[in-house]
């Protein structure tokens, strides 16, 4: 063996920033996460030129998956124009030369923080969700070693108890986003801090979802056609946010997840959270042609 077989020709930066060994480790762990849906797989989680907590887990997955033909969409809180979405999109394009898009239907890979787009994703699309805290048990068990044992034993009693206590105290489950959900009937997973509105989109979806927590070094996945069931009691049904009847003041679209904009007079206005859906709606209204795809929700309801 010689030094030259150990190393490679010098380059200022590897394609997609991550070097070969980082990508291979991620590939191995992604396969495992697909093989055991919803189970958190530990990975090394290399440093990337972005601060931890800013989407470094999602970014590592995206950088491993992309090639110069991959059309990338990045959203934060549903919006393509959010500053951090812009920053990540620019970074991926800069280190991997990928084309970018804002159209959900046009994208091959969608990296997102806190939302799943409103248009139905196809089987040739991959959704990468950024995850701040991968451990659904943390509110009831902050120690990761014990929580891991609980997953191993499928011991979710305390999780259920917590939900039950909330119902007793407040008359409902108080969990806002990150609603704990049972995947493939075996592992309880956090779907990342997506609103409750978005969780049913993961159930038996056509697309692959990869969830990656860079800081916490855990990766997990929901393959296509996989059961994702929010933890609910049979007599207290799962409730998504009551946004089904709200109308976007900018685009006029109704029946989707909204951002609430407080007004000077004390009232609230609403704007559709999926910014590109809003843009497409305005375009259609202005006679620029219909570009909207099929949506998961119809008339503000998720068909069963």
């Amino acid at each position, binding site marked *: 063996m010689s030094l030259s077989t150990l190393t490679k020709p010098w*380059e*200022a*930066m*590897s*394609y*997609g920033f991550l070097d*070969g*060994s980082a*990508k*291979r*480790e991620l*590939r*191995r*762990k*992604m*396969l*495992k*996460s*697909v*093989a*055991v*849906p919803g*189970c958190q*797989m*530990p990975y090394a989680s290399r440093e990337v030129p972005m601060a931890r907590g800013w989407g470094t887990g999602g970014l590592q997955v995206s950088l*491993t*998956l*992309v*090639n*110069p033909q991959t059309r990338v969409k990045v959203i934060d809180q549903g919006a393509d124009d959010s500053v951090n979405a812009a920053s990540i999109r620019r970074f991926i*394009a*800069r*280190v*991997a*030369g990928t084309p970018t898009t804002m159209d959900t239907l046009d994208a091959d890979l969608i990296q997102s923080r806190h939302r799943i787009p409103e248009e139905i994703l196809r*089987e040739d699309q991959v959704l990468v969700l950024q995850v701040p805290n991968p451990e659904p048990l943390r509110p009831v068990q902050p120690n990761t070693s014990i929580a*891991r*044992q609980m997953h*191993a*034993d499928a011991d979710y009693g305390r999780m259920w108890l917590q939900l039950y206590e909330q119902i007793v105290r407040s008359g409902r489950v108080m969990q806002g986003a990150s609603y704990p959900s049972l995947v*493939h009937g*075996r*592992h309880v997973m956090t779907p990342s801090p997506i609103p409750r509105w978005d969780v049913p989109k993961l159930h038996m979806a056509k697309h*692959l979802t990869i969830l990656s927590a860079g800081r916490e070094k855990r990766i997990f*996945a929901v*393959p*296509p*056609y*996989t*059961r994702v069931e929010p933890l609910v009691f049979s007599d207290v049904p799962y409730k998504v946010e009551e946004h089904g009847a709200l109308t976007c003041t900018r685009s006029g679209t109704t029946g989707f997840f909204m951002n609430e904009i407080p007004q000077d007079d004390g009232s609230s206005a609403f704007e559709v959270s999926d910014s590109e859906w809003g843009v497409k709606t305005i375009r259609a209204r202005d006679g620029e042609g219909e570009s909207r795809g099929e949506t998961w929700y119809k008339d503000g309801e998720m068909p069963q």
Partner: protein
Amino acid sequence: MLATPAPGLAETRDNAVFDALLWTLSRPGLPRGLPEPGEGSIISALLDRECLVYAADPLLMPEIMRTGAEMADIDKADHVFLGAMATFDTLADIAIGSDYYPDDGATVIIRASIGSGVALRLTGPGVDGAVTIRLDGLPDGFWKVRAARLRYPMGFDLFFVDGARVVGVPRSTTVEEI
């Protein structure tokens, strides 16, 4: 600042291989194309010096060694290349991980003919209802031994390679011979 790097040949190939592996493991029973025939491109896309590998076929060893991976006994290996299988004995020793760390279950690559032979009905995550696939070249009793070894979420994950085609069967898939 630095210019956008272009992918080299190896990067392009590894990326395409992984795309195929991820796709087929996410959709068990649906084959996908590899950029070149055989196990070689899988070795290059997945293995490096962090891996412990078992190979039943000595012809694969030079390629595996080149990645820096270490050869290991089958029960220690995280990647197992069984080549063309004559008996199912080797299945008995493949690592299935622990309930604490199911990711320690091995990735197993086997040569087989896709599209002929025994018909299998697959159900589970990634499968829309059920999918039927034919696989030939596996020893009799293969699927029974696999089923006996799996203790979900513990288990191992299978890739069958037929020339430049690959099909995945993860541990989460239920397989019935029909």
